[in-house]
Each structure stands twice: as C-alpha cells, then as structure tokens.
C-alpha cells in the first residue's frame, strides 16, 4: 500500500550559500512531480521534517532555498553536495500559471518570498511571449539579505524590475519597503489584462495587499502564498488549518478574495 508519509532518499547535487543564513540546495528528485509555487516536505532522520517551497526545478531536480532558522533547516545547512536528505511531495496548490498566460504579470516579493515565485519567473524568462510583460518588485531587508544575485541580473535585463532594500543604500537598489513602489507599476497601461502576485513575510503580504487594493486593483486579480507550520502537509496534522481551509491542501497559493478572509 502506498504510504504518502514515506519520504524518498534524494542526493544533494549542489549547495550554494546565498546569504549568511540562507542557502539553496539543488537536489536530484527523480520522478517526484512539481508545479510552480508548490512545496515539499524535507526531512533528516533523527532531526525531523519541515515544509520548504520549491524555488526552481527541471527534469529530475528541484531547488530549495532555505533559511537556517529551525531544527531541520539548521541541520540541512550543514550538508553539502553528495549528501543525502529525504523528500516527499510536492504538495499544495501552486500559482495559476495558465491564468497568467498573455497577461501583464506583476510580482511583489519580499526576502525569502522570492523563492516560491522564482521558478515561475524563470518560466516567463525562458518562454518569451508567455506573459505579455513581467514586472517585479523584489525587496530585501539589507545588503546582506539579497538572494539570487545572478538571477536578479537576468531578470533585470528581460523584465521591468524594481529591486529594493528596506534600509541599506546600494547601487541598483532603491531604499524603502516594497509597498512604497507599488504605485510605480504602470497599471494604467495594462487595462484589464494583468494579475498581481504577492509573496513574503505575513506582515509584508498584509500591507502590500492593502496597498494594491488602495491602488484600485480588483481583489480577484491578486494572488498570495501563505506560510504556516505543518507536520504532515497532507491534511491530517491540523497545524495549518484556518477555519475550514487547510493551507497544505487548498494553499499555499490563494486568491486574495479568499486570503483576506482567512483569519487564523
């Protein structure tokens, strides 16, 4: 009998330090299926298991961008290429990519929130014309917190990008919170043909959402991705439940019309 909780042994192909506490691992994931915006359960025997969003993927591999802030992630941080960890997934409902086809896509991401949208943005970069236009506001706390430096450069060449630092000044970056720059997105030129994606820490998503609504963006055009504690990721453990909604099953991606009503 198939046991969904049984993890699969996977080998780490690459280990890349992004910042002092954040790193990306590329893992050989074999037949595991994944879509943009989904997450996997990563585990290390004797330490535990935790949900991590897939930051990029291709044929037989997935990237996970992880901040070492917990029991499991601290331990994964100690691993290197050639080491093994255990994975099950991918889980959850990702970005409605088909719905973004032919549209002007606006992505507002903060900190590690760039990870769950990275593979989708790369798809837009690789499939020219899939999106009408791609507009990115990516914010980081400070200079030391900048993730995906090389990828940011690629996006900068192809898309309309605004990169920001909350408190530092640096060439190529504006200073201030991402919410401050939403008004610079040329929504007027998009007519009706656009969608907005917001990902980041809960407080950032809250205020970015409010700012978008203030700018007159219809709520049904806004998409967010939630992060919650999870033990199982398959609708059993109860940790991620909000009202009748399980973030692991119906999320992590939600339309704003639903997300704004989900009060923990």
């Amino acid at each position, binding site marked *: 009998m198939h046991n969904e*909780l*049984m993890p699969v042994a996977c080998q780490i192909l690459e280990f890349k330090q992004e910042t002092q506490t954040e790193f990306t691992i590329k893992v050989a994931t074999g037949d595991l299926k994944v879509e943009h915006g989904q997450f996997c359960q990563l585990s290390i*025997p004797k330490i*535990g298991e935790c949900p991590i969003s897939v930051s990029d993927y291709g044929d037989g591999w997935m990237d996970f961008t992880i901040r070492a*802030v917990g029991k499991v992630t601290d331990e994964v941080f100690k691993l290197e290429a050639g080491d093994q960890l255990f994975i099950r997934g991918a889980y959850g409902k990702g970005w409605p990519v088909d719905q973004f086809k032919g549209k002007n896509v606006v992505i507002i991401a903060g900190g590690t929130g760039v990870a769950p949208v990275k593979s989708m943005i790369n798809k837009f970069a690789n499939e020219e014309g899939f999106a009408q236009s791609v507009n990115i506001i990516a914010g980081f706390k400070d200079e030391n917190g900048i993730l995906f430096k090389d990828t940011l450069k690629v996006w900068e060449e192809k898309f309309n990008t605004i990169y920001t630092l909350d408190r530092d000044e640096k060439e190529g970056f504006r200073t201030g919170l991402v919410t401050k720059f939403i008004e610079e997105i040329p929504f007027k030129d998009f007519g009706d043909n656009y969608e907005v994606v917001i990902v980041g820490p809960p407080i950032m998503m809250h205020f970015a959402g409010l700012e978008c609504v203030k700018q007159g963006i219809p709520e049904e055009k806004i998409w967010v991705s939630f992060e919650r504690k999870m*033990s199982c990721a398959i609708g059993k453990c109860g940790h991620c439940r909000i009202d009748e909604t399980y973030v692991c099953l119906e999320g992590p991606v939600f339309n704003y019309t639903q997300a704004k009503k989900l009060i923990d």
Partner: protein
Amino acid sequence: MGYKLSFETVNSLFNELRKEYKIYAPKRFPKAGRYSDTDIIRYAEIKNVEEIVFDEKSDYPAKEVVSPITQTLFYFTEDEYREAKVHDKKVLIFARPCDINAQMNQDKIFLENGFEDTFYKRMRDKVNYVMMECTSSEDTCFCCSMGTNKTDNYGLAARFEEGQVLFNVKDDKFAPFFEGKEEAEYTVKFIEENETKVTIPVIPNKDVLNKLKEHDMWKEFNKRCVSCGSCTIACSTCTCFTTTDISYNENGSVGERRRTAASCQVAGFDEMAGGHDFRKTTADRYRYKTLHKIHDYNERFGQGHMCVGCGRCTERCPEFISFTATIEKVNKAVKEICGGECNA
C-alpha cells in the same frame, strides 16, 4: 438476535473472540487520576468482562485505540525509513454511541481530507464495535443536541446488568460465537434526552464568523483558560498531531519518527521556524478550538459538527470551563452580531 450471558459466559466468549480479536474497553486504573486518591478510566486491552467500566463515562475517549496519543510511524537508520508494523489481529472496541460517531468524524480527516493516512487506515480497517448502551446520561453529556446519541455502526450491542450482559448480534459474522448461548429478548435503546441541552449557533457567512472571532466574549478565557490542553486530549474527536524524530542515543544512527497528539490550546501549535505565530493569546486559541468543533469542521465536510457532545472537555478542564456554557455564549454573540436575525 438477543442473548443473555452471565459474566462467566462472557469471559469464555472473550476467550474465543481473543483468538481473532484484541478487545479494548474502558478500564479503571486505580489511583492513577490527577488528584490524590482518584482513579482514571481509559481505554486499554482487556481479557475479562470484570475489567470493563460500564457504569461510568471514561475519562478518555475510545479514539486512542485507533489514533493513539503517541505512535511510531517509521524506524530509520541513516539511509532507510522502515514503516512501523502493526499487529495482525482484528480489533473489537466497547464504545458508546458518541465515541463511535466521533470515530466517523476522525475518519473524514484521516481518510478523506486530501490524502489517505496509511497508519490510521490500517488500524481503522481492523475495528469492529461493541456498542455499549448508555442506560443513563451524565450531567456533562449533550449527545442528543449533537445528534450523536444514536448509531448503527456496530457489530454487537451490549447492555450491562448485574452479573450479566445482554448482547444483540447485528453483524452475522459474530453469530457463530453465540451459538448455543441463552437467547433473550433485547431491543437496543439509545438515550433520547440529556439533562444538558445546547443550541448550536448558525454562523451564516465569513463576515459574521470573522466578527465573532473579534467578539469580546472570548476575552474572559484569557483569565480562565490556562492553555493546558487537557480538553483536546480528552476530546473524542481531536486529531491534531506533531511529528518528532528521536534517536536512541546521542550518537546513534538509528531512531524513529513518531507522531504525538498536539493541542491547539498550547502555545506554539502554530509557531513556525523563526518564531512567528498567529494565535498569541489563550483566548485566541480557545476560540480556534471552539469554532472548529461547532462550525469549521461542518463547514468543510458538511455532515454534522465535529463535537459529539461527550462532555469530556468540560470534565477534564482544571479551570471548570464548561464547553456547553461556551456554546451558549457563542450563541448569544452570534445573535448580537446578526441582530437576532440569522440564528436558527
């Protein structure tokens, strides 16, 4: 078909049944209660009918047989996970209608909600119930209000009398065990009315629900509830758990992955790595549990509320918080929010 068996005959019946079944029933553990000189009644494997506590409500629910408080899922060495094994006998549980209905509610979460849980299913498939008839209702019971006072999900029904047990054989597969036993008239009865009655409020939409979450009624629980989680452990329907890994010794490469009942009443239930949490006060957490039991679960599955009215949460609360009183407070608050118009 009804049968009348003396305790002695029941014990020989148990001996026969135990060749195929493990029998679980509420059992008394003397002086194991939380206060001095008090007992605890909880589910355990039994051999003799004398071990079954039939004239009192068990402190802890029957769910523990199927979804135990702690359960090993996997054993592992460094590069291999091995599924924990389960015994190959079938399981017979002596349970009240509320506890049987509670298991049906757990089924929805463990078997239907997204994925099927292997560890739950393999135990659940073994279970047959002996429905223990309630001859009286205790003061914390409110099963009739929740519609869980009746069930037809049992193989055998049992009515305990002085020195004897009346059995009703509903599932034919148990008939051979009763061949040659003394027949008797026995029609199964259910409790039709409890002393305690509640009306479950109808929360018509998310706006009312979210207003209810902010209602002042919850504040009193900041002072009263101590976030101990006793209510959720005693709850016959709570399913939440946390997974933890352990190693057998500090440097050992072998260990196991376990899941242990988790309580949404205890701080940290929603805390993510990095320290961010959502429900920061005891009132927030008590509200979260209450609304799951009398609204959220039904909103998701639509076939009745999660709470089965067993009243164990009320009995186990060290701060004497009554769940039925809470429900009435919710009722009042919903009426207030809706201006008295949306309440059934």
